[in-house]
């Protein structure tokens, strides 16, 4: 257990706001950061906006941005300090074009989701309970 930072990567402001609201309503204790795209996310992981400590969890929809999401995950998996980050793919896309590629990168979960508020709350609640039973390694 313990606190972890979570980085949500999504170019839809409405989705990010929905998650913030859901995290607040469910009283998720982990801090939520957001990035509008993979470049900004990378900057927050290993660039000019680097978060400290580095987030332990990433939430991303790899089906939205052609193959940028997969390239981003590939880069994470090839980075010594970032490769251990838990990645949860959350997607409302019906065409799961990048599902196989994501599964090949040892993601923690591939989660088809709806972002409507009531349903989102139930998804976030399950994820939150899961994050509360797992251990994280020491801060970096």
């Amino acid at each position, binding site marked *: 257990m313990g606190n972890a930072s979570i980085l949500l990567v999504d170019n839809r402001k409405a989705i990010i706001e929905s998650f913030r609201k859901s995290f607040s309503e469910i009283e998720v204790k982990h801090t939520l950061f957001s990035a509008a795209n993979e470049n900004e996310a990378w900057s927050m992981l290993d660039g000019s906006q680097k978060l400290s400590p580095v987030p332990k969890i990433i939430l991303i929809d790899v089906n939205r941005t052609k193959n940028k999401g997969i390239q981003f995950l590939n880069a994470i*998996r090839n980075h010594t300090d970032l*490769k*251990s980050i*838990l990645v949860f793919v959350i997607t409302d896309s019906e065409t799961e074009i990048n599902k196989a590629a994501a*599964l*090949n990168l*040892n993601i*923690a*979960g*591939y*989660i*088809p989701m709806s972002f409507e508020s009531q349903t989102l709350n139930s*998804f976030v609640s*399950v*994820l939150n*309970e*899961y994050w*509360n*039973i*797992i*251990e*994280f*390694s*020491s801060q970096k």
Partner: protein
Amino acid sequence: MNQKLVNILLVEDDEVDVMNVKRAFSKNNIMNTLFVAGNGVEALEMLENHIIPLPKIIILDINMPKMNGIEFLKIMRENEKLKNISVFVMTTSNEDSDKINAYNLNVAGYILKPLSFEKFLTSVATLKNFWQLCEL
């Protein structure tokens, strides 16, 4: 939704812990087929020699004789057919080095075995909900 249930492999040397997992599965109505290996060597043999159908989930202890969980995980991740299986560590080891090694080998979660069976039941219930979310 009617999903076909995936196979689960438990890699655990302690017979009491194996029984606890089976009890917790039963009480949580987890109907997936559960296979058991007593250590990493046995688990690899079952997987590589097709003695069991390929599981989608492995529940993995760390401290085991012959081959521990981390050693097993390293070999598994280098095997094309096995490397994408979701692994959930379930262990009494609270060592940071074990957590670091496990997450570097991309486990989906690292869970400390609770001391009470009641808490263990709750953890397994949470796992079940998470697996359903991932459509596992």
